[in-house]
């Protein structure tokens, strides 16, 4: 009987070892991967920013091709919460709201009515911030670093997105005059766009 009972326990033991081992292995793996992954970047490396500066715009200055390095990075400025939240802070620090309000527009165009004068692509938005646009949009080339421009562009794009990304920043504590960034505002506030429209200026997909 003692032998039998020990055998049964042995079975359970091996199961327990199996589970313990699996849990320990998973957790250790997680710890190692966690240690090796890149943490949040507070300052982009100079070669990277130089590469990000290489935009190719279409002749009409609407849309274009982002630099290859942007895809190699995994489009961080549109998809990571940290960069989006940095963009949100840059939006207020660099006085964007003076003309664009809380994204609702003012002297400058609105970002959340579903229409983009120069199209909704990242390249166009980056170009608008970096080089300025006619009718009053100043160039920020000498005021912001390249990665700051990309962060800000990512945030502005997220403001007018039709479907909110899970990485979008959340509401402010203070009351705002528009829905929170994670609430798909463009779909709610869709407006008839200005005429005449280039097809690329159309609603954000």
């Amino acid at each position, binding site marked *: 009987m003692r032998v039998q009972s020990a055998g049964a326990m042995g079975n359970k033991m091996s199961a327990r070892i199996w589970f313990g081992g699996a849990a320990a292995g998973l957790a250790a793996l997680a710890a190692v991967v966690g240690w090796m992954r890149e943490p*949040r970047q*507070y*300052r982009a490396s100079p070669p990277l920013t130089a590469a990000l500066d290489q935009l190719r715009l279409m002749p009409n200055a609407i849309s274009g091709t982002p630099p290859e390095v942007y895809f190699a990075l995994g489009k961080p400025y549109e998809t990571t919460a940290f960069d989006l939240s940095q963009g949100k*802070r*840059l939006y*207020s*620090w*660099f*006085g964007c709201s003076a003309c664009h309000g809380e994204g609702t527009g003012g002297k400058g165009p609105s970002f959340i009515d579903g229409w983009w004068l120069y199209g909704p692509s990242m390249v166009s938005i980056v170009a608008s911030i970096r080089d300025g646009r006619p009718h009053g949009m100043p160039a920020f080339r*000498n*005021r*912001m*670093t390249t990665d*700051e421009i990309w962060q800000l562009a990512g945030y502005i794009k997220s403001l007018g997105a039709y479907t909110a990304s899970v990485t979008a920043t959340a509401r402010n*504590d203070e009351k705002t005059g528009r829905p929170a960034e994670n609430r798909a505002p463009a779909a709610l506030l869709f407006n008839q766009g200005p005429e005449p429209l280039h097809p690329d200026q159309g609603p954000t997909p």
Partner: protein
Amino acid sequence: MFSASLLVFLTGCSGNQSALNTHGHSADALRDLIILITVVCTVVWLMVVGFLLWALARRREVPRRDSDTERKMALSIRLAIAATILTVAGLTIASFYTTRDLNSSNGASLTVRVKAQQWWWQFAYQASDQEPPFLTANELHIPVNKDVRLELEALDVIHSLWIPSLAGKLDMIPGRKNIITIRATRPGIYRGQCAEFCGLQHSHMAFVVVVEEGAAYQRWVAAQAAPAVEPAMAEASAGKAVFMSKPCAACHTIRGTSATGTSGPDLTHVASRRTIGAGLLETTRGSLAAWIADPQTLKPGNNMPLVPLTSDELRQISAYMEELK
């Protein structure tokens, strides 16, 4: 007595941000309470450990469980419980009296509004008879032996104001206003630091408190209330122009110029302060230049964005900053 002498030793080498090396009305009272409770607790602990050692060391043949022993033990435990209650009650009363002492202020002569934000301190001095109101950052000046009322506010997350050598800490909570009154008893420079975890640069959110004699304090107030000096050197004048044309002016105020931003510290007299970056670096021309050139490496994640500058512009701006005494 051992712990008391240990405390004296510990006080000696503990710097200007220490709850033991105190020069403030309330911190002194708190230090006395700390010493009192520590001594009482040390004695109690020694008694417990002493009894434990005796219980282990005493010779005995067999475990005792006769009714006579049990009765004696029950009696001793009752006595011990009574002693515990008395000690605890005594300490509670001592604590109440200290609290009452701490709040025995007789009207503050000076009120400063302290606004904490990620990750620096703004001190707003009110207008007095002679001087207009002014703002400064990360450096609080107070006159010695005067009650100073600090109105504490937080602009973003919870922070906590703590100047261990002068007073205990008090939290700064968004949506609330807390008030603490401090009185320094000796001129000197004391360090304070945020004591409630407030995010990435919680570690680098310090400030200095400069306690001065009345006259020196008044001179300081007069100097701070004045608008910024016009730069004398050509390099500094060029720096001023760069400052105004770059985004610097969108966040910083320099009184007497067109720079009126409010999200960063007021720089009107930045060079008169002992540190920059909330206690991060000593103020020198070199450290100013280093900070402007690359704030995110010196204090990763802080709210000063990197602004692209040529090396000439950087030199000019730091020359300008250095003249803002």
